[in-house]
Structure formats: structure tokens, C-alpha cells
């Protein structure tokens, strides 16, 4: 290997250079992109973790109203906090595969209706008790109870029977679901002693760190759990999350070295921050997407020609460039991208086509009255600007799109899922089935486009229990095409997670599952001093 390549590799492995930049510069030296990625992966692995020290993250998305009850976690900081003290049955890793955590083995019946999870022996909670199969069942039971107000209720409600025998947990489902292990990796489903029924907010779990100070909306500090079962995780002695909701304050703290990593870098300042010494920007292609949603059952959007006209009249490339500052990828009017397993990359990209849009609009026979798009600044970052871009490109195609600005306050209860045409965003799910089942199944609570197609539902349910991956991929491709051509979703862009870290942080790996390495950055990274 040339010296130049070695040098680049060392820089990229330490996070001083982005992956994309590395592949580009390696390409200039005659190295193929695939080889460059392999080299990078092995170089990143070769770096030895350093033990000890205090690792700090500054995060947006924490309030003084946050609770330690995993069932209630909804915003970024509670999620990251729970990922530090808690442990689920399984995790989804950066490659989209299952990592075994509290469960060490998973098996299913051929029709995927009965699943067995073998519980790892000798996993210890922070209070010294051992994790048992009964705890797992009690935890899942708590989340199926409506009173727990669990964010995972929709995930666990299909489990009709659960029982614990020795170290084996058996779950029976109402209908087959090949993705059940992925669902068990949901961040709400942290295994708690006794299921957390007596004290859901105790913050006692089996994760790599135990809670020292919990000051919601201010800071959360942790110390290493000495008897943690996995020695490859948890390098720092202490970790800390500091809640810094103000973007400028967060960036300053990173520059001044008071924090080692931060989430949510404002896309507007990415260019400026790239030149700052000691800091690198980490943009990770995730599954989150910014959308405009039309109700397929309300006039004028009950007309598929009109829906198609709207889809053709949005300029996706312009949105990615201007709204995301290039830190994202094009959407294609279905909620799935390459970050999902079994993604079909042969589906053609829909482009802005004013002529075709005008034609579809004419065909729809719309009476020319204004088509009102309701939008609030908080729908997604840059929502107002995105709506204005949409308005201009649609007007150019002769479609009378108008924008109605709504207040942020109450947007998610008064406008979203209520108004026939509005802006929204989706955070993405670990697997395709879950994304489609959450928002596009006829009976889903959050079917925010009111898309009701019996054929779509049937294919989705068939794909769910399908263990043959080839057939399954074909079924998902059919779902995507159906939604792309008939649905009420206009998906212009998938946003990257844009984060930043200081150079002394080692072990950083891009993870499409969630922010800050799916909440595990503090547990998986270390400090090079």
C-alpha cells in the first residue's frame, strides 16, 4: 500500500476525514470504492480502544419534563440516556443485522408465529440482581398494557401469549412476523427488574453504565457498570449527557472542548464548522424523511391524477441542495431508502417534470381553486422554506398551490393527521414492515395519508410472515411501487443525521439506525488522549 493511502487511511480511521472524502481520495490513487470501504472498515477496527476518562455528549432534545421510564421515551435525550443504562433483548447493528444482547439465541417456527428467545446467563442489573426470563416477560407485559402509555404498544400488541420457562422466553403472535427480532430492538423495550412494574422510573437496567445523577433537561451522568457482560463496550470510566438545546451554545461547547460530541448540527453552519480545528462533521444517511402528505380520501386529493400532478411538480434535487444543504438523499415517494434491508434500488427515481405535472393536473379536472398546503416551522427543519420551493415549482407547472402557515403549538394534534394536505416528517423504523405497518396499512392509527388499498394490505401481511428473502424483497418492491404511484405521500428527501465530534474521540462508526450511533456513541467510543 502506498504511503499516501496509509496516511489517508489513518486519518479516516480516526475520523479526521469523512468516509466519502476518503473513498474519493483513495479513488484518485486508483483504489476502487469497494476496496476503499473494506480498507476503511478494517482500519477502524484495528484502532485499539483506550480505557478510562470522562466522555461527554452535548445534545438537543431534552426537557426538564423527561422521565426515566423507557415506555415514555420520545425525544432524543431520553432515548440516548436509556441506551446507556438499558439493554434490550437484541440490538440492530450498523449493518442492519441483529446483535444479541440479553437474548443470546433466537429461533422461530417455520410460519414465524412462535418465537423463542434464549436468555443469556449471568447478566447482572446495576443493583446486583440477575436478569431472568420472568423479567423479560414482565417487561413486555407492561408495554402491552395501555396504562403504561408505552411508545412500543403498537409493536407488542400482536403478541397474544408470552411465557417464561427456565432461560427461555416464548412469544406467540397473532399472525406470522419474520421481523420480530428487529421489533424487540425497539428502544422502549429495555429489560427492567420485575418488568419495571413497581417502579418504572428507577433507571435500573443491565446496560454498560449506571446512573449517577439524573437531572432532566440539564444533565445525566453515569459511571461504568463493573459487572457488565460485554467487555467490548463501555470504554470510558464515566460518561455524561449535557442537554444543550440551543444550537449555537452546543457548537461553542464542542469548539471549546467542553463536550466531545454533539447531535443535530445545524445544516447552515456545516460549511463553517468543517474548517474548525479539532472537529469533524459526521453525516450519516439515515431513514428519517421529510414529507408532504395528502389524504387520499378527501377532495381534491381523492383523485390519483391530482396526486400524481403534485408528485411530479416538486423539485427533489433542489430540496436536498437547499433545505438539507446537500446532507441528504432524494426521496422517491415511498418511505424506504437504501438504509433498509431488502431495498429495491431498481425503482426509477421520480423527477421534477413541469410538463407531465401540468398534463396530469389537466387530466384530474381540478376546478382551479387553490390547493392549500398547511405547514408549520416545526414540521421539520426548513419546512416553511421547503413549502415555498414546492409552491414555486408547482406554480410553474400551472398548479395553484398555496401555503397556509400554522403555529408550531398544537401542530401535531390539530393539523397533522387532520388536515388533508400538510408537511410532516418520519423518523424511520428498523425494518420495512414496521414502517409500512405504522403508517400505510389501512387500519394503522398513524395512516396519515389515509391510503387504503386491500391489495397493499394483503401483500404487506404476506411479506411479514415470509421467511424466503427473495420472495420478500419482491413483495416489498411491489409495495413500494404501489405507494409511489398511487399513495398520498410526497417524499422529497431523506435527511442525514448530521453530527460532530472532536478528534480525540475514537471508535466512531456511522450507524443509520439512530442519532449518535443509535444512542450508543458514549458507550462504544473512547477518548484518545
Amino acid at each position, binding site marked *: 500500500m502506498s504511503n499516501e493511502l496509509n496516511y489517508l487511511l489513518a486519518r479516516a480511521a480516526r475520523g479526521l476525514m469523512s468516509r466519502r472524502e476518503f473513498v474519493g481520495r483513495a479513488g484518485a490513487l486508483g483504489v476502487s470504492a469497494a476496496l476503499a470501504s473494506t480498507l476503511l472498515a478494517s482500519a477502524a477496527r484495528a484502532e485499539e480502544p483506550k480505557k478510562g476518562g470522562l466522555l461527554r455528549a*452535548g445534545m438537543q432534545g431534552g*426537557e*426538564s*419534563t*423527561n*422521565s426515566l421510564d423507557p415506555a415514555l421515551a420520545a425525544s432524543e435525550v431520553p432515548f440516548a440516556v436509556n441506551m446507556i443504562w438499558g439493554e434490550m433483548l437484541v440490538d440492530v447493528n450498523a449493518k442492519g443485522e441483529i446483535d444479541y444482547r440479553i437474548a443470546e439465541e433466537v429461533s422461530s417456527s417455520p410460519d414465524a408465529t412462535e418465537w423463542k428467545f434464549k436468555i443469556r446467563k449471568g447478566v447482572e442489573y446495576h443493583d446486583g440482581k440477575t436478569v431472568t426470563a420472568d423479567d423479560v416477560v414482565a417487561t413486555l407485559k407492561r408495554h402491552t398494557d*395501555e*396504562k403504561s*402509555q408505552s411508545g412500543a404498544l403498537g409493536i407488542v400488541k400482536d403478541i397474544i401469549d408470552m411465557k417464561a420457562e427456565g432461560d427461555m422466553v416464548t412469544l406467540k403472535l397473532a399472525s406470522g412476523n419474520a421481523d420480530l427480532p428487529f421489533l424487540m430492538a425497539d428502544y422502549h423495550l429495555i429489560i427492567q427488574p420485575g418488568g419495571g412494574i413497581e417502579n418504572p*422510573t428507577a433507571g435500573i437496567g443491565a446496560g454498560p453504565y449506571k446512573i449517577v*445523577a439524573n*437531572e*432532566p*433537561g*440539564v*444533565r445525566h451522568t453515569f459511571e461504568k457498570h463493573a459487572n457488565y457482560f460485554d467487555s467490548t463496550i463501555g470504554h470510558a470510566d464515566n460518561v455524561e449527557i*449535557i*442537554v*444543550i*438545546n*440551543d444550537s*449555537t*451554545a452546543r457548537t*461553542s*461547547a464542542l*469548539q*471549546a*472542548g*467542553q*463536550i466531545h460530541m454533539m447531535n443535530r448540527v445545524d445544516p447552515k453552519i456545516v460549511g463553517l464548522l468543517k474548517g474548525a480545528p479539532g472537529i469533524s462533521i459526521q453525516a450519516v444517511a439515515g431513514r428519517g424523511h421529510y414529507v408532504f402528505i395528502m389524504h387520499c380520501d378527501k377532495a381534491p386529493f381523492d383523485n390519483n391524477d391530482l396526486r400524481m400532478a403534485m408528485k411530479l411538480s416538486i423539485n427533489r434535487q433542489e430540496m436536498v441542495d437547499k433545505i438539507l444543504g446537500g446532507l441528504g438523499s432524494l426521496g422517491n415517494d415511498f418511505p424506504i431508502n437504501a438504509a433498509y434491508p431488502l431495498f429495491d434500488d431498481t425503482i426509477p427515481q421520480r423527477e421534477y417534470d413541469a410538463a407531465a405535472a401540468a398534463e396530469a393536473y389537466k387530466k384530474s379536472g381540478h376546478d382551479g381553486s387553490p390547493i392549500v398546503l398547511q405547514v408549520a416551522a416545526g414540521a421539520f427543519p426548513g419546512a416553511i422554506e421547503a413549502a415555498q420551493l414546492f409552491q414555486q415549482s408547482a406554480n410553474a407547472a400551472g398548479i395553484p398551490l398555496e401555503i397556509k402557515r400554522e403555529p408550531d*403549538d398544537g401542530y401535531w*394534534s390539530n393539523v397533522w393527521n387532520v388536515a388533508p394536505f400538510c408537511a410532516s416528517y418520519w423518523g424511520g423504523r428498523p425494518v420495512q414492515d414496521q414502517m409500512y405497518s405504522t403508517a400505510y396499512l389501512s387500519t394503522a392509527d398513524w395512516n396519515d395519508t389515509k391510503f387504503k388499498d386491500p391489495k397493499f394490505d394483503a401483500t404487506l401481511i404476506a411479506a411479514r410472515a415470509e421467511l424466503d428473502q427473495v420472495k420478500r424483497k419482491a413483495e416489498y418492491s411491489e409495495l413500494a411501487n404501489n405507494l409511489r404511484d398511487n399513495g398520498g405521500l410526497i417524499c422529497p428527501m431523506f435527511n442525514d443525521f448530521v453530527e460532530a465530534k472532536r478528534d480525540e474521540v475514537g471508535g466512531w462508526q456511522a450507524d443509520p439506525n439512530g442519532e449518535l450511533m443509535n444512542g450508543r456513541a458514549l458507550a462504544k467510543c473512547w477518548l484518545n488522549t
Partner: protein
Amino acid sequence: MHPVVKLVTQRLALGLLLMLAVSALIFFGVEALPGDTAQAMLGQSATPEALANLREKMGLNEPVLWRYGHWLYGFLTGDMGVALTNGEDIAKSVGARLGNTLFLAFWAALISVPLAILLGLLAARYNGRWPDRLISGVTLATISLPEFVAGYLVLYFLAVKLQLLPAMSMVFPGMGVFERLQAIMLPVIVLVMVVLAHMMRMTRAAILNVMQSDYIETAKLKGLSPLTVIWRHAFPNAIAPVVNVVMLNLAYLVVGVVVVEVVFVYPGMGQYLVDHVTKRDLPVVQACGMIFAAVYIGLNILADVVSILANPRLRHPK
């Protein structure tokens, strides 16, 4: 009874009456909002049975006056109930936040009040000459700067560029006093910049007003130095308006600094209140409202009493 004691007692009684009125306003204002606490707690998942159960448990079926009395009694005995959103004891979490806010306000006041008065005296002494212009110009410039701009400016220069002071003013229990003081240095600088001008200008104006009086002329003719004239003869007679402005600014330092708290990540009352307002956590909002009202009323009573004591004409009313 000595007239001063009587006056002070009257003021205190009036203040208490005012507090009672404010408490009624806060309680019945929240009461008048559509929906009730049980509904706010259960949110969209509210079923009629769950609502009925929770109302029963929380005593929401009792008559409204009874509940007002109960709430007020709880507040007076330090029992403010628990937050709806995370079930934490309100008195405990508010106590910690209030402590932080008072700590910041105390140090900002300790620096800004003497400095403002001193600068005011100097500006009055050199009225119309360059020290006056310089002092007025600089302080008016700092008050004209919105506090978040001032915050970002000092942050950029002192924390990011020169790295003299920490960018975040994070304080937490168990932190040493010196560490705390270092942590709050930047917000204190910003707050001093914001409140200085108001107090300085009032001191200057009040003293210049008094300087027109005959007895100042006499003092000057006695041959006293200009600063002695101001300090011994003019200032005591200018205290009343100055104290009022000082108290207004102190009240601002306690209840109005949410923007500065956000910029410097300082865990004070303002951020706490805003978080709970956005989540409709009404018991917390009520508690914070009462505390803020108490601070305002208390400081204003103090201003009144000091003005009375400082002024012989008010001290011995005919």
C-alpha cells in the same frame, strides 16, 4: 406604635393581599382553560373510565373553592404536588432551580448595582463632559444589544476564541463555590451589561434633579468638593427613585433571564417554566407563577420600605 413600623406593617399586609389576589388569578385562570388536569395527563389516550378514575384520585370532583383552598394551603406548607409529566416532586425540583436562579441573580446584582450607582455618580459629577458621554454611550450601547446577541458575542470571544472561560454555565449539586463562580462568569457579564444602563441613567437623572436645589448651592459655597456634595447631600435625597429602579432590575434578574439561561445552558427557573408550559404541565406552571409573583411583590415592598426609610418626609407623615 411607631409610624414607621405601622407603615411597614401596612405595606406587608397589602403585599399579602396582593399575593392572595394573584394566587386566585393564577388558579382560576388555569381552571378556566378548556379541559382539566386529568385530561392533560392522559392526553389522547383518555378513555371515559380512565378520566373518571383519575379525577377521583386527584380530587378533581371536589368543589372548585375547596380545591383552591387546598392548593393554597399546600403551597404555603411547601407541598406543591407532583409534576404531571415526570412525576417529580415540584417543591424539590423548583427549589433547586430557584437556588440556581437566585445564585446567578445575586452575583449579577452584587456587581451591577454598586457599579451602576458609582457610574451614575461619576456621570452626574462630570455632567455633559467626556466621562459622562463615555459612560452613557457605553452603557446605552450594551442595553441596546439584545441579550442573546450580547451572549453570543462574549461566548465567541471569551470562550471559543480566547478559551478563558467555560462556554457552558452548567452547575450541579456538589459543585464547589469557586467552580460555580467560574461557571457563571459569562452569564453574569451579559446580565451586568443588560441591567447597567437603566440603573445608571436613573441615578444620574435623580442626582442632577437634586443638584438644582438651594441646599446644594449652599454646600458648594461651603467649599465642599463636588464628589462630597453629591455623595453627602445629593445622593441621600435621590435614593427613592434609584431604589425603585434597582428593584425592578433585580426582579428582572430573577424572573426574566430565560434567554440568557438558554444561551449559556444554565439550569435556572426560566428554562424550567418554559419546558413545562410547552408540555401543559399545569401544577408546575402554577407553582412557578406564584414564585415569580412573590419575587416581584416582595422586591417592590422592599423598594417601598427603603424609600420610606430614606425619606424623612415619608418617615414622619403629617
